[in-house]
């Protein structure tokens, strides 16, 4: 069947764009290996592949920079990998309009570099920006440590081109920063994990990039003191652009020897802006946090690195956590989030990184759970998902051993809108060929 598929794909978009079977393992999604892989050079190629897959009744797994390729449930249907990295051009950059249009396979780092030439940025803050693509960032909706100030990727997307499950190209939104012409499909596609359509091009609005960055890290004696100090700072007019609270295990996992350690939880305030306002924020924050057990000031490039390290922590390929759970919760749930330290997996307690301003955070484990009982771990993770629901949010298991995925929907229990989500999926992909099985409840 494999060679047959490779031959068919070669017919559809030319042999050059089809990976030979030796390379298929690179496109594995956990225990699942696709039966073919293509790397089209443009949206027409994507359309041709989709039309073929629809006829052939075969699954399609869109692939970006493969930084989050393991996200989601295990695929349920044989299919091909559709590698978008060939669509990597900057289409249109209008600095004076504060907009940029680029193809989906362009990496976030490439995009950042183009924009930086003109002092602009699209503050997506995606993890592993060197490899993460625009399309992958939008499909996962993944955001970075600065989300309190800058919001989520969906807040920057103003237009999108997609290829539907049947190969039909369409677009939503446009090139302007304000637009209520028709329904907001930009937001629907963002975070839909490629289960509704394949994103081929995106237009973002831009912001002026801060000219200076700094950070303050402070260790506190215990959770109560840390939470009180963070809340007080968050309520100030000089509140930082981001404020994260790490339990000692999470602070250690940052691998940064300069971070205050050996005390209690560590708060990290990230500050960006014009030099005058950065100075003011640093001074006032330091004064407010005089009580902290230990404080570290971080300037310039090191602050940027620290921000990137925070973004990368859950996905860092050189030190990947064995289990990572993202808890979406309102800010007032911070104490309960930190109390999840008691949630043990096979006896191991998690590192916890909370986002003070935005709410929620991540639970991380680095222990090797390969000998542990997968169904028991799944039960514990389900418990965390239940606890997150009690807090008014939800919890997504962003990574865990494949054996555990057999026992759990990593996206959590079905939300109230599940029936609508199902109908949306049926409308956009009636034959379920786009990323089958990977998203919530089999969407």
């Amino acid at each position, binding site marked *: 069947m494999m060679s047959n598929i490779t031959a068919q794909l070669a017919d559809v978009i030319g042999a050059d764009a089809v990976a030979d079977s030796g390379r298929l393992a690179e496109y594995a999604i956990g225990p699942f290996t696709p039966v073919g892989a293509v790397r089209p050079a443009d949206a027409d190629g994507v359309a041709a592949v989709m039309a073929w897959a629809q006829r052939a009744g075969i699954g399609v797994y869109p692939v970006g920079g493969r930084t989050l390729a393991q996200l989601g449930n295990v695929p349920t249907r044989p299919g091909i990998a559709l590698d978008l990295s060939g669509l990597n051009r900057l289409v249109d950059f209008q600095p004076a309009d504060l907009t940029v249009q680029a193809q989906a396979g362009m990496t976030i780092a490439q995009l950042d570099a183009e924009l930086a030439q003109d002092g602009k940025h699209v503050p997506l803050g995606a993890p592993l920006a060197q490899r993460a693509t625009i399309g992958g960032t939008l499909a996962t909706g993944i955001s970075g440590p600065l989300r309190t100030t800058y919001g989520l990727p969906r807040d920057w997307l103003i237009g999108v081109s997609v290829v539907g499950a049947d190969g039909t190209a*369409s*677009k939503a939104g446009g090139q*302007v920063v304000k637009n209520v012409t028709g*329904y907001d*499909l930009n937001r629907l596609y963002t975070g839909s994990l490629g289960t509704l359509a394949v994103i081929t091009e995106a237009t973002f609005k831009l912001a002026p990039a801060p000219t200076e960055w700094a950070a303050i890290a402070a260790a506190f004696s215990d959770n109560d003191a840390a939470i009180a100090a963070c809340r007080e700072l968050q309520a100030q007019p000089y509140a930082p652009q981001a404020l994260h609270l790490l339990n000692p295990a999470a602070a250690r996992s940052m691998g940064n020897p300069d971070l205050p350690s050996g005390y209690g939880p560590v708060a990290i305030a990230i500050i960006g802006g014009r030099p005058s306002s950065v100075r003011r924020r640093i001074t006032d924050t330091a004064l407010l946090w005089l009580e902290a057990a230990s404080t570290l000031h971080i300037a310039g490039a090191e602050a940027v690195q620290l921000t990137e390290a925070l973004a990368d922590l859950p996905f860092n390929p050189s030190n990947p956590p064995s289990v990572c759970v993202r808890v*979406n919760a*309102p800010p007032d749930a911070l104490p309960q989030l930190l109390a999840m330290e008691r949630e043990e997996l096979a006896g191991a307690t998690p590192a916890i990184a909370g986002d003070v301003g935005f709410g929620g955070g991540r639970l991380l484990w680095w222990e090797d759970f390969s000998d542990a009982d997968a169904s028991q771990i799944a039960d514990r993770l389900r418990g965390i998902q239940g606890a997150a629901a009690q807090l008014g949010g939800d919890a997504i298991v962003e990574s865990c051993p494949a054996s555990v995925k057999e026992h759990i929907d990593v996206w959590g229990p079905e939300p109230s809108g599940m029936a609508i989500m199902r109908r949306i999926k049926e409308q956009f992909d009636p034959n379920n060929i786009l990323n089958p099985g990977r998203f919530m409840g089999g969407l």
Partner: protein
Amino acid sequence: MSSPDLLTQIRAVVGDDYVIDHREDLLVYEYDGSVDRSMPRAVVLPDGVDEVSRVMALGYEAGVTVVGRGSGTGLSGGAITPPDGLQIAFPRMNRILDVDTVNCTALVEPGVINLDLDNHVRRFGMRYAPDPSSQRACSIGGNIAENAGGPHCLAYGATTNHVIGMEVVLEDGTVVNLGSMAREAAGYDLRGAFVGSEGTFGIATKILVRLLPTPETVRTFLGIFPDIDSACTAVSAVIGHGIVPAALEMIDALSIKAVQNVTDAGYPNDAGAVLLIELEGLQEEVDEVTREVESALWDTGAADVRIAEDDDERERLWLGRKTAFGAFGTIAPNYYLVDGVVPRTRLTQMLRKVNEVSERYGITIANVFHAGDGNLHPCMLFDAREPGVMDKALAAAAELMEECAALGGTLSGEHGIGLEKKEFMPLVYTDADMAAMQRVREAFAPENRLNPGKIFPDGSYWRPAGAHPAGHAAVLYV
């Protein structure tokens, strides 16, 4: 369809006093802020999600169309209800249920008036950022449906950026929650899809909105320009310098005249155009940006730059801006405006087109708009009693929309498509683009019972019933 049976059943749910079906009582529900008019079969005023759900279920069984109504300030015909349809309005569901100062959120019912919410949360040191010029009158439910914008959306984004979760009732009466209490939720972003769906996906019965802290420093200034061209250049200069003010509004000579007729906003009568600019943030930041904005304004030919000395002056400057549409009543009895958007660098070009169209059609056009994000509001002023004038206005509007599309812009920045602009959708979207949109509607409302016949072109001949009386708006919004 319009069986008295249905209304009897609905009365049993909401109470006799809360179903309106007498002709004279229905008069105020037959129009909104647009140029359309149609009298609904009846208007229902439910209280609480349970009543909304039961009313919707009854309507669904009876096969009737249901249209939600907020305050009726919509400018694209969103709340216009077909003659056999039911309108559901929310004057009784106007409670602010909760304000949470840790989460910076408020939980509100759909009938809460935008400005009432903002005023209420100010006492907690917070604010509700989306501030449509109609904020004294429009409802949060209507804001959600239209994804309303406003001057301060330049920096803070439109309504969709400020909605965290919603309780909504679907066409068959089913109640669902979209989003959650957290700013991000697993699954498809149904919340994001719902906002801006113009009442076609469901009826919002509770809304959890995000609040922002009030800024330390606010500075408001007026850039005074000899003509609209130089004011447009100034807009590009400010944005191009990488400055995104909290608000950046344009008011042209005719609008200045109209405003100054009704209130002394402090706009100079002899200016060709003024820019109303607001900066917010830390004192140091605002001071620094003030200097940059000032020099950008001088460099692009400003005749004068004035900074509001105190809150009073600041409020006067804003009152002028927010009164403009009402004030047009002093120039002509009727107005009709277009909500097009262009990339910001195309403003000069677009306004030249507006001018040209105004001259060619012999229609007065005033411009007061959200310049910072390229969202125009060319406002035609006329006397609707003059024969043929409405046709002329509509033809002129069509040309302006075509030009917006041609310049890489779009039909609507904040007022929605509704009835008014639906036949123009092909200017910016292909059939495939619109088919994708329709799929989402199919999923939310498979029977298409909510506000049907809006947004998408269906070739049905649309003819407005009359022009909106500008004087009426003046009473409402001054």
